């Protein structure tokens, strides 16, 4: 296994979960319509710590701007690197919102009511044009917007707590804020794009669809994945891909310890450095076919970048099998 240097301290994923303690005073003024307040433990994402502008400046990617600054910031983004252009191309009108078909507030509806309201949004005859639904009042609620199986476009203004969007399918979601632990658990189709950071266990046990995190993600990202695609534009923590069986994990930044899984078919691509790899996996360059595949995936995720910048993390046994099969097509005796 090749030696992989440990990334510098600054390359570690930011820690939005501990960035600011919850202040009970302001918490009480906003009713949590999703879970009772006493259900929120200290290690869960505190609601008051969630807005992007509350995070330490050095913990944010350069383009992770406050929600209010989106419309001003988008034209200034540097398009030579992977940027938020893909994320924002449909959202630069965040202040005007001309195409909003429905608008619901998480402060006014209980979670069950909200989900029912979204499920009852009528679908147009034109399958290409999904109804747009604006979700307001996101303020760190846990277990929000779960198990929605309805083809609509949701835009969530604000940050959400743990286990947001669990077991969703078909829905196309954009979040203008951070999310807590376990975002998109068990998701089976559709897409979720998070403009901010995610906590630990993002995309756990997802079986399909696309989860894009445009900030950084914590430990065990893509844990027990069974399919789908997971993109993290920034850094990820330790044990990424732990127990994953299938799917694709793309890491735009650096990774912590134990990256990869030797017993799976999951495809892991990384642009930065990993502090260490799980025993049984190794780094390998991309083949042409994978470069094309990854390039398309990056485009679909709105991440600018050249696929050749990435390396893949692959089980040693799988690589050996690939090489053995390749030998028949490209005989090494030539």
């Amino acid at each position, binding site marked *: 296994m090749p030696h992989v240097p440990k990334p510098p301290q600054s390359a570690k994923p930011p820690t939005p979960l501990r960035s600011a303690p919850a202040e009970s005073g302001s918490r009480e003024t906003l009713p949590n319509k999703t879970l009772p307040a006493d259900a929120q433990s200290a*290690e*869960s994402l505190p609601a008051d710590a969630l807005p992007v502008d509350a995070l330490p400046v050095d913990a944010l990617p350069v383009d992770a701007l406050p929600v209010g600054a989106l419309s001003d910031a988008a034209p200034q983004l540097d398009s030579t690197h992977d940027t938020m252009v893909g994320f924002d191309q449909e959202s630069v009108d965040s202040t005007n919102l001309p195409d909003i078909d429905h608008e619901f507030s998480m402060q006014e509806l209980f*979670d069950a009511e909200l989900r029912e309201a979204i499920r009852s949004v009528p679908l147009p005859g034109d399958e290409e044009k999904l109804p747009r639904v604006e979700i307001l009042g996101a303020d760190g609620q846990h277990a929000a917007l779960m*198990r929605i199986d309805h083809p609509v476009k949701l835009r969530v203004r604000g940050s959400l707590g743990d286990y947001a969007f669990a077991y969703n*399918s078909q829905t196309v979601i954009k979040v203008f804020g951070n999310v807590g632990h376990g975002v998109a658990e*068990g998701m089976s189709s559709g897409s979720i794009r998070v403009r901010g950071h995610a906590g630990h266990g993002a995309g756990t046990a997802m079986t399909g669809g696309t989860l894009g995190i445009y900030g950084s993600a914590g430990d*065990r990202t893509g844990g027990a994945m*069974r399919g789908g695609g997971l993109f993290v534009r920034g850094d990820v923590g330790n044990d990424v891909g732990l127990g994953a069986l299938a799917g694709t994990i793309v890491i735009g930044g650096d990774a912590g310890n134990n990256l990869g899984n030797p017993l799976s078919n999951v495809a892991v691509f990384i642009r930065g450095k990993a502090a260490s790899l799980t025993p049984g996996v190794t780094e390998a360059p991309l083949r042409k076919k994978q470069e094309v595949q990854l390039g398309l995936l990056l485009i679909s995720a709105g991440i600018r970048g050249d696929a050749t910048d990435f390396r893949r993390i692959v089980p040693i046994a799988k690589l050996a099998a690939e090489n053995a099969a390749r030998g028949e097509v490209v005989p090494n005796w030539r």
Partner: protein
Amino acid sequence: MNSDRLASLHLLPPHSASVWATSPMYPVAQTISRPDGNSVRLELPLFWYEPPWIQLPREVAGRLAASVANLDVVVSALRRDIAIDEEPSELFAAIPADESAATDAAQRQFLPRMTPYRAERYGFMPADFDETRIIDVRLAATRDDSGRFAYSPDQMSRWEGGAEGTTIGGGGHVATGSFPTDVVSLNQARTKLDQLRLLAPSAAVFVSIDCYRLEEEIAAALVSRPDGLIVRMNQPEIEGIQLAALVTKTRRLMDEHEFAGKPLWIVPGEVSARDVAKLIALGASAVAIDAWCLPLVRFLLESMPTSRYDRTAFNQIPAVTSQHLWDDIDRVIGLLSAIMPHGSTPQRLGTYHSRWAKACGASLLVP
């Protein structure tokens, strides 16, 4: 049917000198409360915790699961354990209502089922949350038949290989997880349990642990405030007296952690109907009867016809199941109807052995 592991304990009758009165028949049904005020009703304090579904073809496993659940025993299964995605098993379908009965969706009845929520969630589908009575959050890793902390290739293929049973992960064993990847700590697990309550509004959310290092494990598990606790005591090394002591100790620890009155479900391994009643007298709320159901699995394996068109054995599964289990279930109901629900252990149980009395707090009887 089974050996009497708690034979040294005696279920005590009322004092002979007490004033004559008609003995009440205490009900065996129980209701489990959720924090949101909803409750889950279970008719019997019996459940099948770890059925070896992988040993049976899906169709036969589904029929057996529904047959056992039809006797009001809570059966643990994922959809993919016992059926393909497109054709859910009888266990997951609504009980056919009488024509005269209302067909309102809210009044539909389902068989009692518990859903294992493993750390890795292999094989888990969102539909597994629907109409389940218990979500069993398994915090401890489990061994397969070979003793590995792993899932066999066949098991993985059934869960994740689709109807064709495609090989998964290179076709080898896949390691089990010991803690959910999206849970940061036991404190934060409380949020996870609340999430599960939202996803499964008809279910109580339990946490299951092993019986080793009980004090640490119970203290840790109860931090997340589950609706009940499942403790696995089915290791073959555990003797009867140890089993009784472990149940007593578990209940005491739950009381100390302000968890008194919450359900304690025990997975004891081999037990008889009298053992089940004694375990409940010691403080358990429900007892796993895996040992009673395994002979059914063996019977089906032996009697399975080689021809797929021979449905005789398949059609007889409900009758065979009822014939095999009902006597024991009825005996449990009978014994429990004579146990005071809120009585103390010395009032309920006695023993002639000082070791047993010391181990579980039963009254020491003089021969």
